[in-house]
């Protein structure tokens, strides 16, 4: 990858930029060493991400075989099946549960990150460990544990029923709200970590300045701290929202029939119906739904960054 073809002069020039340009980093191209360092991860992405994604897109356009395989030739049958009237409701549910759980993770993660970044360094390390500690227990076990906690005869349901908040016959489990709640639980650490990383770099003198200029605690927090960690918010949003869109285990275990998400449908097409092209079509639709907004956002950001760098003084 780092050896340019001798007949092609352009990559050769890119591989050997003028020394001055290189030291000033005016050249946007990668040096030979940078290419070498990037080659392995690029190869990894190509083999384990790009190729499988393209395969899924390809399978979506193949006909299914009666024995659960992928047939020859091209067919729009699987894509057409997406028009099933059941899907819009499930897609809508997937979106609102994912968005709600993401919002919950960000809303809970922000004050956590703030408190951690403001804590003394000794406490900070301890709190960071506390955030990561749940990962020591297997994910499945933790979700199963919630089934015990929220079980109709479990402690929470009994207590709520006793104080009269929970009507008889109402369940804490097997509904979309259970999926949302447990999703917030499961993904909160993934939100806290990038938020903390951003909060740690935040200049807390800015909050003093905001107070000095007449902002109360809350307004200083929302007007100055929250925009100040927006990079962390964006990362937290991505690492929580995108996996949630495809989440499968949590709705399967605590969602019941009313809490099924698109991930469950993909699994059903795959394991129950043995209709791999339709599963692939659903996956592809989900991937596109995630990739297109992300692509738009990065184009927008790239254009803004270019605009900002042009507006900056030399």
């Amino acid at each position, binding site marked *: 990858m780092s050896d340019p073809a001798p007949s092609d002069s352009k990559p050769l020039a890119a591989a050997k930029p003028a020394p001055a340009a290189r030291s000033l980093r005016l050249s946007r191209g990668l040096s030979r060493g940078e290419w070498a360092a990037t080659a392995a991860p690029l190869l990894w992405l190509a083999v384990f991400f790009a190729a499988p994604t393209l395969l899924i897109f390809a399978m979506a356009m193949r006909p299914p075989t009666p024995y659960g395989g992928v047939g020859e030739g091209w067919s729009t049958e699987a894509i057409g099946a997406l028009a099933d009237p059941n899907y819009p409701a499930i897609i809508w549910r997937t979106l609102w549960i994912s968005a709600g759980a993401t919002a919950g993770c960000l809303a809970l993660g922000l004050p956590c990150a703030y408190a951690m970044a403001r804590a003394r360094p000794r406490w900070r390390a301890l709190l960071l460990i506390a955030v990561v500690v749940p990962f020591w227990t297997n994910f499945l076990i933790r979700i199963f544990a919630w089934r015990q906690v929220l079980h109709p005869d479990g402690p929470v349901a009994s207590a709520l029923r006793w104080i009269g908040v929970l009507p008889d016959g109402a369940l804490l489990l097997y509904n979309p709200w259970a999926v949302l709640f447990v999703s917030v639980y499961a993904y909160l650490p993934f939100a806290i970590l990038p938020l903390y990383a951003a909060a740690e770099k935040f200049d807390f*003198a*800015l909050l*003093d*300045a905001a107070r000095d*200029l*007449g902002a*109360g605690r809350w307004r200083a927090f929302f007007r*100055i701290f929250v925009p100040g960690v927006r990079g962390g918010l964006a990362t937290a949003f991505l690492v929580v929202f995108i996996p949630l869109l495809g989440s499968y285990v949590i709705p399967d275990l605590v969602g019941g029939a009313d809490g099924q998400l698109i991930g469950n449908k993909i699994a059903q097409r795959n394991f129950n119906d043995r209709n791999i092209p339709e599963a692939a079509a659903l996956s592809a639709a989900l991937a596109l739904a995630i990739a297109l907004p992300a692509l738009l956002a990065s184009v927008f950001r790239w254009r803004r960054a270019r605009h900002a760098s042009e*507006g900056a*003084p030399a």
Partner: protein
Amino acid sequence: MDITDLPPERRPVNTVFQSYALFPHMTVRENIAFGPQMAKRAKAEIAPEVERMLELVALGEHADKRPGQLSGGQRQRVAIARALINRPQVLLLDEPLAALDLKLRQRLLVELDAIHDEVGITFVYVTHDQGEAMSISDRIAVMNRGKIAQIDAPARIYEAPRSSFVAAFIGDTNFLEGKVTEAGADFSQADVPGLGAITIDNDRPVAAGDLVHVSLRPEKIVVSRGQPAAAAGQNAVRGVIEDAIYYGPTSRYWVRAGDYKLSAEVQHRRYLLDEEPPKWGDPVWISWHANDGYLLDQYREEDEALLSLPDEDAALP
């Protein structure tokens, strides 16, 4: 009104922070408008006020840039405008120029002075730079370990320091310790062990037998090769040049006289290459008038550590 217990947002005070603390995600205009917005003033009322402030600090053409796109001096001016727009009763400036280079600092100091004249409110200006303090202040409070050591006009701080701390902290000085041998009406005689008998000005009433400490600024001392003419109140001591630093307009001499090593600052008023200035090892006379020393009220030996001595890095005065 005692504001000690008020939260910062309720105090009629605004601050210019040392690090500027400009909000990076807001433009210059938004930064300046932040205070009035927090005070919930009407939008239509805020906008012209912001423009006026932009004009005051000469940042009109940068109004829509973000702090990251500004130079240090421009950021400083945004910080000042952002604070002043709230019309505080007192503007607190916490080492506002510390992060800037020397030339910019001098220019901004003049600008700050002009802004001060224009807005007319009290500026409390915290600085470690005596030059800044002297040049911009009407009154200086010299602080030592969180306590005010002296509040006075700059010239009084410099010429009539109350304690050895103030004398040594602001500018450079020499301390002479002596015992009054003969108290007079205007001048008294004192014996300085290791230096000899000197005449002192009665800056405060003294009686025979009192222990006194004189602060003698280096520029008040005259260095000469010949013995100066005797006059009432004139002190003259023989010494040897032990160290000399040439600064251009002035030279600093450290003269060994008895047990003392006195620092003297000599102004070169004449064309120096036609002269023969004293050099290392030369025997000289040092002289000063009793009027030019000042009797300190309080003296602590540890303040001598603040004096510049030739074996340390002698800072430019």
